Each structure stands twice: as structure tokens, then as C-alpha cells.
């Protein structure tokens, strides 16, 4: 599983949905369970999966999976 798949899989398991339904454009607007608590779960899950810590101002900008992907890649997680 590459890191993009890992990202989608982590989000899918948090929201309890099929990873196929997610992509980098997925956001709270397109994913019903991505509410404020969903966001808290997503952050905890991603920090555990990728063994990183997000800064507090980074998470304020987590408007879609693409942004999260780029923050992860700034933290040294390689994406193709």
C-alpha cells in the first residue's frame, strides 16, 4: 500500500466508508461524517498511521484530503 492509499484508507476507516469513494478532493462538504468530531478522529488516526504530529495551525487548514496530503509530504512522508 503506498502512502496515498494509506491516507485514503485511514480516512475511510475513520468515517466508516469505502476508500474507493474518497480522493484528494474529498472534504467535509462531500463526506457527511467529516464533521468536527470526524476531524478530531481523522487527526488522531493520521498521527498514529504516519507517526507524525501536526502543528495546531496546520490542522486549522485541513479543508480537504489534498491539503492534508501536502502537509504530510512537508513532514517527510513521500507521495509519488
Amino acid at each position, binding site marked *: 500500500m503506498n502512502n496515498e492509499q494509506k491516507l485514503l484508507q*485511514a480516512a475511510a476507516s*475513520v468515517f466508516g466508508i469505502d476508500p474507493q469513494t474518497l480522493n484528494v478532493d474529498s472534504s467535509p462538504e462531500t463526506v457527511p461524517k467529516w464533521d468536527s468530531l470526524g476531524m*478530531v478522529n481523522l487527526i*488522531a*488516526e493520521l498521527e498514529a498511521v504516519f507517526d507524525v504530529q501536526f502543528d*495546531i495551525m496546520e490542522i*486549522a487548514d485541513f479543508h480537504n484530503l489534498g491539503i492534508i496530503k501536502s502537509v504530510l509530504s512537508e513532514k517527510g512522508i513521500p507521495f509519488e
Partner: protein
Amino acid sequence: MSLLEIPTAWPETVKSEVQGALNSRRLGAIRGALRTLADLPESIRGKRFKLGIIRTFTIETQLDSLGLALATLPCQPDISLGPLESLEQSLLDTDSDFRRTEPDAILALWRLDELHPKLAFEAPEMASESRGKAADELIERIAALCRKFTAASHVPLFISTIPMPTNLSHQPAGIHDHNGLRSVLLKINRALLNIAVESNQVHLFDFAAWTEQFGESSIDCKMDFFARQPISAAALPSFSTALARLFRPLLQPPSKVLALDLDNVLWGGVIGEDGLQGLKIGHDFPGNIFRRFQQTALNLRARGILLVLLSKNNHSDVEEAFRNIPDMPLKLEHFAALRVNWREKHQNLSDIATELNLGLDSFVFVDDQQFEREQMAFNLPQVKILPVTEDPLTILNALTSCAHFDSYRTSAEDLTRSSDYAMQNQRKELELASGSTAEFLTTLGLRATLSSVNDATLGRVVQMLAKTNQFNVSTRRHTDADIRKILADPRNILIALSLSDRFSDQGMIGLGIAVAGSTNEEIFIDTLLMSCRAIGRGAEEVMWSALVSYATSLGFRRLSAEYIATSKNEQVADLFDRFGMRRVDETGERRRYLIELPAIAPLPKWIEVIDSYST
């Protein structure tokens, strides 16, 4: 790593999945484990447990972890949350959505940040009197909450102590209490502890102690600011486990007995091999580990937990060691029962359970030998077995952190239970030490001598007839002359029984008299008695067997008997029933019995019988 006590009845794969998922902190793994548990048979999942939580901060996303920890109690948890804030409304209004879930237990999780933000963040600016007043108000608020709730409901309520506020919890310990907050919190928490101590319905979750134990890593400031979710992901497994354990006594009755192995558990080394001098027990390493273990067991005893000893050893070696090793916390008299012998431990434990009249599921077993643990688990699956290795520190830690004895209260009865049992134990010490009754009796080397009565023993016979009240089926007080008359007819039987064992000779302690009827068909047991001090050793069976066999050899076809009830001979009311005789008649306090001859009357295996009657 947070260790759960996972039910032994769960399959191994499930156990490791649950433990792994909880510590992984991965939501997917935790939910997967919860799904696995949902597929287990109902019988090993435990009953449904509805937990209601009122709280002042966010824990929504952490409930799966808590649910998984709770499930290991075992139970089928169903957690409902009250809305943030509105503690009073959630708890006291029976029409609130929260109360309508009808929880089996309610937990209040709160902290100063929300309960009293001014005190939490502005304490340094406040005058000392205002801080004191704020603390008193908060104490009264919580006390009133508990008072009103318990007046109207029987649901157990768990209140939390209050940790240092997040912004101050990272200050190094020992720093001067600049802002006066630490002393204020100590006062508040002391009051909360008192509320719990004084109520049978209110219990305490020491949230402050938990956060202090984990220090900085218990709180996640980022998620606290972002979503008011303070419990850190790293500390969540520990938080869930600590909370789950809090509810354990509601679902699992506390264990009552700690069954201890001896060698390499209570001391280092093997007494049979290393000898007294080679044992490691004392203040120096590694004896200090075993000493601490003994003290931990003794502290459990002070709470009313019974200690029993299961050791494969020679009893005398063990007795000598306990008597001669100086300064050992545990003494032999601290044990409610001892089994120092070479039987299998599960047999000894079963015996003890019967003797103490306790269920096997009340026992927790500690043994450093895997073989012994496996054998116990195989034979007595109800017994709880501490998961240990041969490493003495794991054995100590397993006992220190053992949840099986958890209970909310220690009653006055609990406190005296251990010493009550210990006194009984002293009276029966040798019996306890030697295993089951038959095995014990075998060790005594009992010898019964059957003899006829002559002039030299007649006095003793008449004395027994006059004095014996309890083990006496007919209580006939024959005189010297009566006995001589009975002896004059050769068809009559008069047997005296003497008993000795390897300790002492007890002399003549039993008498059996059978009187021939007018025909040669029937002979009647006129008297059967035993001295009290000989009871319980099988001497009565020896006497019975002798009566049957002599009556048979004299050519009688039937043996009859009579039980005459008195105020003192209740213990032999069913003696003839036990011997296999048939009841033929009953009038008033007299009951007649009959048996056809020849009859089977087996002798106890543990008594050597010397028959000098016939000769």
C-alpha cells in the same frame, strides 16, 4: 503499554487482537476488535452494561477505546454521553435524554477548566480568601449534586477528582505553590474523597492521580484547544483501562482467596534443594523482591482476602523455614489453609474450597511454574490464574496490579475474616497440612484393637456406659451387674474397641453390645457408643464391621438395632442408615432398624485392625 485482564474464556486470537488494538491507538483496529467481539458467543461476552458519562470536555472520539476496554470485564458496553456542561440538568432531571438511557452506572468526568474557569486560570490574581471561597462553592456544588442524585436514584455514581488545569499541569513538581492552586485543589479533592467514603453509592475516579502519573503526556494541548479534547492519544489506552477497571466490581464479584505457591514465589529458591540457608528472602536483592511480594499478600489479607498456601514440599521443611527465617512478613498462622504435600495442586485447592465453603471462582492462583498454572487451568477453569513468568518482578507486579480483588468497600466483617479463619486453622493445623480427610487419617497410623471384656476392663466399660452421651445410639446405662449378666450368655456379643495412633494411645474408646433374641434367628444391638475424642476417624465403622461379622459367625440371620433419641445424641440419628440398615418401625423417640446377615460392612482403609476378641 496498558495491560488488560482479558477473559480466559476468549479465544487466544481474540485476546491478542483486543490487546493489540487497544495499544495500537488505531481506530480501524479498535473498531475491528469490537466487531470481532460482537461475533463471540453471548455466554462469554458478559451481560449488557450501560454506562452514562456526564462530562465537561470532549471524549466522543475516544469512546471506542473505552468501549473495548470495558468489553474485557467482560460485558457488552453501551456508552451514552451527556451534553457538554449542564451537569446538573443531565444528572438530576429524570426526563433528560441522558437519564432516559437508564444507565447502570454514571461517571462524572470534569476538570477545573470548565467547572471553575476563573479559579483554573486566574488564581494567581485572586486573593487567597476568594480562592478558598471558590473552592468551598465548588465542593458544595458537587456535594449537592451527589446528595440530590443519591436521594432519588440507586444507580452508582462515580465522581472524578480534579486534576491541575492543563496550563499548569506541566509545571515541575516541587515548585512553590505560587498561585495557591495546588493547595486549593488538594482541599477540593480531599472533600470529594470524603463524599465517596461516606456514601455507599458514590465512588471515586482519581482523575488527578491518573494525570499526575502520566504527567505531561496525559494531556494533548493541541487537541484540547482545537476540540476541547484533553486526553492524549498516547495516554488513551491507559485512560480506558483505568476507567474500565473502575466498574469491574459492578460486573465481577471480587475474588476472596489468594492461593500462593511457595518456592520462587514467597521466597527465592527451592527449600527442598537449596535448604534454609539458600533461600532468598530479606532486605537485600533479590530477596527484597520476594519480601515485597509477601508484604503485598499480607496487605491483601488486611483487606479481608484469605491467603492459602499450596506447596509441593515436605511439611516439616516448610514449617521449619517459616519458624526459623527471621523477619519474614508472612507467618504460617496468616494462612487460612495450608496444603503442603505432594498432591496435585488442583486437588488441594478443591479441598480448600470445600473446607472454606467458597466457590472455585473466588480463588486467584499464583505459581511461577507454567506446568502448575496449566494444570490448574485445565482442571479448575473457574480459578483465576495470574499471568506471570518465572521472573520474580513480573510475579510481584502481577499481584500489585491484580484487579481480581477490587471492591468499593472493605466492611468490618472483611477486616476480621482473615483472623477468624486463622484461628480455625490453628485448631485443625495438622489436618489442613495433610490434605483430604482420608489421606490425613492415613498419615496418622491408626490402629484399632478389638477385645472382649474381662474383670480388668469391666470398670472402664461401665464408666463409658455412664458417661457417653453424644455418640451413643441407645444411652442405656448398664451397671456392673447388667454387664456380667450379658457376658454370661455366650450368644451375646460385647466388644471393646481401643484406638491408638502414632502420637498416642487413647485406650478403650468404644463399646458394642449385641444381645441374642429368644430364637437363634435375630441378634439386637443393645449399645453402640464411642468416646467423643475418637469420632471422625472411622472407629465406628470398625465396630460395625465387627458386630456384623461376629453375629454372622454365631449363626444369626438378622441383626436389629434401635436408635433412641435424646437431647444429646443427634449426631448418631442416621448412623444405622449410613451403615445400610433398613428402618422397620418408629414410635416416639425410638426407631428400629434391621439388616439381613451376612451383610457387607467394609473397613476403612486407613485403620489397621487387631482382632483379639475372637482369640
